């Protein structure tokens, strides 16, 4: 699943930074129909977890009320340079992940 992550290029230790992620996914509601009347089954990203240097900093449980190609922005305290790991799964069991690096200066 294609995803894009945005972190600031660098941060000062202790600075509160914005983390943004957007994922290409139809977030199919289950209320739509194909031509011919066949219902399209529900399939949404139902869980997303964000980790920063291994510690969970944010997670989301989502439903069909979240718009297609979901977008999330949240905040975290930049304490050390390191890796961000984002993992998510949809109703069909498809998993996605994305990495990003943050440089933290004193």
């Amino acid at each position, binding site marked *: 699943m294609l995803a894009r992550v945005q972190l600031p290029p660098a941060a000062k230790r202790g600075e509160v930074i914005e983390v943004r992620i957007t994922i290409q996914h139809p977030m199919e509601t289950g209320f*739509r129909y194909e031509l011919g009347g066949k219902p399209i089954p529900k399939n949404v990203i139902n869980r997303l977890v964000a980790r*920063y240097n291994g510690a969970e900093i944010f997670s989301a449980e989502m439903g069909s009320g*979240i*718009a297609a190609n979901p*977008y999330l*922005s949240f905040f975290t305290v930049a304490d050390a340079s390191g890796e961000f790991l984002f993992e998510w799964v949809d109703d069909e069991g498809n998993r996605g992940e994305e990495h990003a690096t943050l440089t933290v200066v004193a």
Partner: protein
Amino acid sequence: MKTPARRRFVALLAGLAAVPLLPFRAARAQADPFTALLKQVTGGATVRPGRVIVDTPRLADNGHSVPLTVSVESPMTAADHVRSITLLSERNPRPVMATFYLGPKSGRAQVTTRVRLNGSQRVRAVAQLSDGSWWSGDAEVEVTESACLDAS
């Protein structure tokens, strides 16, 4: 009608008018969809309006994608922070839209996303703090193009 019969008839009408309307009022109060939803989310705990701000456009361009920012006043320290924020819809077929889990590492209790709204309605965000208390904030959105049940 003879006069005494008419008097009795009028008295009967007056008597009926005095019947208390309490059952009907109670039914209307329970019609607020958020009441049952909040119970589902908080397990019956008291939810106090305040500290939670829901920022959405007053008029949505399209119900399929409505930007929404929810923020909660909180120092976000280990001792005092927001644990979770749940987004509730008044009119969507699935009223619990999302739950976000935060913590002391968050720094700021603010989440932005894009939601689907099935028609004009209120959106309510309910936040649980680290001390176990629950707070809520509402926003009202006009939606001319509905999402969810419009199969076009």
